[in-house]
């Protein structure tokens, strides 16, 4: 079992305290709402896509620190990037969170590897991934994202 302190690192705590790109864009070309029904997390992502480039992006919602920090760092990472490069990041982040990414091989995640510890907390993987699902849904103009339909993440144990 991992030491949880290594997950709640200063960079994550900082993004939780002062989330970047927090809010809602008035003239968004794409948007999606992500929902994790098991924990009640909700996330709205709005973005402006022009010539297949993300010119601006914002998120807001009700979520835990892991989800909020993940969303904050994600928006900072994809702003200014092409749709294609954003999709690469989405793919790599999912692989990272589920423990499938070999971080010794070249990747594009940079400081986002701070979330690598989440793979040892199966119940929290979905918290970290939700913003990325939602971004994927927004880019593809899907109506909404839900971590429930995701086969790549382990299931969250549900208790009564």
């Amino acid at each position, binding site marked *: *079992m991992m*030491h*949880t*302190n290594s*997950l*709640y690192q200063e960079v994550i*705590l900082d993004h*939780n305290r002062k989330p970047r790109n927090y809010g809602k864009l008035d003239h968004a070309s794409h948007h999606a709402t992500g929902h994790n029904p*098991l*924990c*009640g*997390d*909700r996330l709205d992502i709005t973005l402006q896509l022009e010539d297949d480039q993300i010119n601006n992006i914002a998120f807001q919602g*009700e*979520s*835990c*620190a*892991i989800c909020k920090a993940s969303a904050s760092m994600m928006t900072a990472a994809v702003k200014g990037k092409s749709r294609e490069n954003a999709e690469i990041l989405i793919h790599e982040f999912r692989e990272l969170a589920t423990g499938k990414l070999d971080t010794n091989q070249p990747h594009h995640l940079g400081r986002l590897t701070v979330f690598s510890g989440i793979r040892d*907390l199966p*119940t*929290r993987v979905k*918290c970290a991934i939700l913003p990325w699902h939602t971004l994927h849904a927004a880019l593809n103009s899907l109506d909404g994202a839900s971590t429930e339909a995701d086969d790549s993440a382990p299931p969250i144990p*549900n*208790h*009564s």
Partner: protein
Amino acid sequence: MTPVNASLKSDVSSSPDWEKIRADFPILQLDIDGKPLVYLDNAASSQMPQQVIDRLVRYQTTQHANINRAVHYLSEVATLEYHNARCKLQQFINAREDREVIFTSGTTDSINLVMHGYGRKFIKAGDEIILTTLEHHSNIVPWQMLANEKGVTIRVVPINDKGEVEIDEYEKLFNERTKFVGLIHVSNALGTINPIKGMIDFAHRHGVPVLIDGAQAAPHITIDVQALDCDFYVFSAHKLCGPTGVGILYGKAALLEAMQPFKGGGDMITSVTFEKTIYNTIPHKFEAGTPPIAAAIGFGAAVDYLTAIGIEHIAAYELGLLEYATACLNDIPGVRIIGTAAEKTAVISFAIDGIHPHDIGTILNQDGIAVRTGHHCAQPVMQRFNVPATSRASFAFYNKKTEVDALVAGIKTVQKIFL
């Protein structure tokens, strides 16, 4: 039969030796990442004492066969032990007859059985069902399924800011269309103990049957279904130190006999031809297929164990833990207890300012502390208190005050990390 005893037999004149009782639970000796386990998620599922584990082992090693079928030795023993388990449950809730106790797969299954067996037969379009805001999803969703199928209306009793059902509002909901009441005995999310006796009596004055969801009550409160006069009472074994996969539906015999079967199959029939099937008598009519025999026998051993300690002793001890924990948590700035009913079991739902319950749960886990975080399958309760989720510490008789202290220290660690 080898009797199953708790470490100290019930004795009204003296309090049980709680340290000795705690030692009955091997899992409580676990270390989690080098820290002793502090298990405070008993409302989700309780732990199993060695006596019940031993009973399961004895059944599997010396008594197992299918029941109600063959004439060989093992089948007769298993049939008898399964029947004995039913009788233990009958005594545990003081049912009039053993045939009023149906083994199901658990509380949810029991409620679904009543929805299909009673609801689909007797509740019609235009009728109304009363539920409370405190209900667990398992006592909401089956009735919604019925409502959608039949055109039935669900009326919901509100709760006050302490998490108590508003009795005046409950009584106002009754009218000539009211045909059923589903009522949680103890709230899993808040610990509120509902005044069900008066609520049952009121419903009966209107000729309306009442189902009590006792999943959270049976481990902590002496249940007497005859004194309560409830029509149905349901709970699961795994919240009473028993195995998962089994629970009971208690129903008044006349109601159970009038109901239609829920599941069809073996054991629930008297005779089958392709033209016509004659259903078996209760309880068998509702126990299609091979039941969870081992789990039911373990369930019987679990109620023996609890009875030997004495539910009254358990309730008194847990109340002490609740009062201590409530005082300790109220002393921590930034911590807010949600659910402050006058009558509560040892369940504390709480919020910490600015910190999401899932972060709280993850960091407490680092100290070996197991609490539940989330909506507790009671989203209407969360909505009522305007929170997406809470953290919940729920205590059992094997918990101790030093574990409350560990929780308090853990909460302070959480606050230190975030503030």
